[in-house]
């Protein structure tokens, strides 16, 4: 995910700010090299998903983590996903279903080439962390058919009632103890060491603390970060293959220092075109971004002085900003709580509460929803979410539509028109408030 940001440093200070970017780039490159070298090094590969990923546990078995969603994102950013989606549809996959899945299937059909130009190895195991998205289950059934490899199911119950119950925790811990861990031991040939897990979890907490600190700096005016477009880079290491590693700790330390510096200097976010100009609009965004036109999409915001101060998508691999941290003293229970708490595993009322909280706490001008055609987990119910958040916060909402990695569903003119109308609506609302106050 680091490949798209190619900001040229303009001053010595900028070089310092680039440290986290360079670090992430180096981490990702090393990870893909490790992954594609696995057939030579003999390392075992486990594919798994971002929401509910058990990186610390997988590291206990020396497994190299491959995340199909991240591969699809990479292909979206590189504009290769469109051809992969078409390839999958050609071989029988419906035009109606998730384009992450089709990008992945199409990529496999076209040689399964990683961002470093080398072939992805076949996974030794599919760790199906079935968390917050029904499509995950079908996705790994499809991959299992392709790779003919062992699949381990970890079922995370949905928080339909808005709470985590002891029954849910017990169910998940039992699955971890009696199914997931014994199978990972057998596949990896490594015996499980719970103290090793504890050590990784301790490291996770450090990175989680720094990530939350960074995200919450957006409460300041101007916000020193963009918590959606920029936030997607910030979550990369912790949502991916690095939670629980020294690399992640170092990355988030660099990031924190850089953002602290921007904050101290009263600077706004960094964009692909350099520092953002004057902050005019503060938005909360719900839903994933479009990746095929990511930069163009972002530009529509920063050209208008709009900064995203909080987003739900940056909570899809873990919600940390309401206090949750991995707890090394309860290693399996904490993994269960982590999975249960990810954003898309939360009930609709919980999601609305979170978004209202963001609009209020971050003093946003309103909620913008980017509704994704092929992601029902996010999209089903978003119109009600928008109306409810508007009602509760008194701030206007707006709705745009696109897709994750299918370029056919990105209509730049439509989105730009809607955004411009939305910004005008915010201006009118402000004028109305000023008039009422006068």
């Amino acid at each position, binding site marked *: 995910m680091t490949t798209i940001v190619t900001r040229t440093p303009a001053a010595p200070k900028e070089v310092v700010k680039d440290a986290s970017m360079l670090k992430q780039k180096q981490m990702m490159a090393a990870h893909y090299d490790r992954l594609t070298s696995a057939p030579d090094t003999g390392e075992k590969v486990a594919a798994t998903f971002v929401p509910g990923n058990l990186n610390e546990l997988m590291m206990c078995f020396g497994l190299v983590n491959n995340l199909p969603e991240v591969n699809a994102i990479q292909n979206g950013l590189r504009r290769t996903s469109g051809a992969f989606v078409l390839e999958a549809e050609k071989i029988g996959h419906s035009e109606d279903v998730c384009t992450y899945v089709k990008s992945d299937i199409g990529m496999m059909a076209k040689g399964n080439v990683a961002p470093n130009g080398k072939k992805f190895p076949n996974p030794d195991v599919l760790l199906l962390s079935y968390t917050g998205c029904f499509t995950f289950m079908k996705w790994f059934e*499809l991959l299992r058919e392709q790779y003919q490899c062992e699949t381990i199911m970890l079922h995370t119950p949905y928080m339909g009632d808005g709470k985590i119950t002891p029954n849910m925790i017990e*169910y998940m811990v039992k699955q971890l103890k009696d199914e997931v861990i014994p199978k990972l031991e057998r596949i990896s040939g490594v015996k499980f060491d719970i103290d090793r897990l504890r050590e990784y979890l301790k490291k996770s907490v450090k990175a989680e603390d720094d990530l939350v600190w960074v995200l919450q700096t957006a409460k300041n005016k101007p916000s020193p970060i963009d918590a959606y477009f920029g936030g997607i880079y910030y979550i990369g290491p912790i949502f991916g293959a690095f939670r629980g590693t020294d690399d992640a700790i170092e990355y988030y330390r660099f990031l924190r220092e850089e953002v602290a510096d921007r904050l101290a200097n009263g600077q706004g976010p960094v964009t692909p075109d350099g520092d953002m100009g004057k902050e005019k609009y503060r938005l909360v965004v719900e839903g994933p971004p479009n990746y095929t036109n990511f930069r163009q999409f972002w530009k529509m915001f920063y050209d208008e002085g709009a900064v995203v101060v909080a987003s739900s998508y940056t909570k899809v691999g873990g919600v940390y900003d309401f206090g949750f941290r991995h707890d090394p003293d309860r290693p399996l229970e904490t993994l269960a709580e982590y999975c249960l708490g990810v954003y898309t595993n939360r009930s*609709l009322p919980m999601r609305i509460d979170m978004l209202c909280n963001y609009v209020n706490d971050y003093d946003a001008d309103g909620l913008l929803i980017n509704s994704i055609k092929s992601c029902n987990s996010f999209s*089903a119910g978003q119109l009600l979410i928008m109306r409810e958040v508007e009602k509760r916060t008194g701030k206007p909402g707006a709705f745009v539509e696109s897709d994750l990695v299918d370029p056919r569903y990105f209509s730049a003119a439509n989105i730009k028109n809607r955004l411009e109308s939305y910004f005008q609506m915010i201006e009118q609302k402000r004028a109305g408030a000023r008039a009422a106050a006068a």
Partner: protein
Amino acid sequence: MTSATGGIVNRATQLFEDLAFTAPRAWKAAEPGRKVVGYLPIYVPRELIHAAGMLPLGIVGGGDQLEVIHGDAYYQSYICRIPRSTVELGVSGRLDFVDGMLFPSICDVIRNLSGMWRMMFPNVYVRYFDVPQNYRDDIGGNYYVNELAELRHDLGELRGKPITDDELRQSIAAYNENRRLVRQLYAFRAERPWQAPAAEVYLVVRAGLVLPVEAHSAMLRDYLAAARTEERPRRDNCRIVLTGAFCEQPPLNLIKSLELAGCYVVDDDLLLITRWLTSDVPTEGDPLRNLAAAFLHHSESTAAKYEPDLKEKGQHLVRAVRRSGAEGVIFAAPSFCDPALLDRPMLQHVLKDAGIPFIAFKYAENSGQMQPIREQAGTFADSIKLWSGT
């Protein structure tokens, strides 16, 4: 319709077409304190609702006769039809007599609808009913027993009195009988599909979504007896299994069109709840354990359920073809139905390996144009006859 089956089918048709839910309303009004609990596809343990003295009410969308006005304001164009017509039923007051709603674990859309319902109808008991995707008794089984216990507790609260084990056992017996009758009907249709047309079987089975189980069992018995004695002309149709229609229902005309086009439907996954548990649930012992064991080890396979064994994937469909003597499979999935459409390529690979021909199309519950489907099904029927050499 004056035939032996005619009266029964007429009654079932009235129930099917009645978007005001007159029959369940009348059931509720007949005695003070009665309650109705709705549920969406695919499966909820109706025994618990029945044991609380309540009427389980199956909600499978609004069909092709409901004009959706409000429901479309809640959903984007790329989301299937069933949630929007269900919202329409709710917002228009057609479900204002319903005291509780269960939203089973089936897909992200129905899952999220559970939260929407909770917000839109705060006075209604709403529960997202999760089921295990782990099938070990000591893992998924324990989890499921506890989920059942919570539901049992909640329903007991709703009626003001806890549900006893004996009440549950009686309800299990009533639903065992109902499922046996549905299985008999399906077996009869597979044997003599011209005697039990698919549309009739659908209507008679669907009546079970709005009738008390005892009344529905009586209807099934009557229909079976009548269908057995009534001679009807046998067409030169091929025999197919219809699959993918386990949630949003196809229009009745679609089911009729398949047979008119030359395809006898000898098995299907419509209204799967009526035969979800594939064998009787024991009426002795711990009723919740028994229901859990039945779910884990004796329940239908469908796209919403994880199949842990790669070799088993799709075999339920092959078995359905063999069991019913079908010659092919028609995949009919609702537009934008993630589980059915994501599952379809895998099932098709299994059928291909088994040498079973298939076709696929999509529908919506309000699809109006049947001509393309009729043409596709007709061509499929013709090709089956040509391939099979008959």
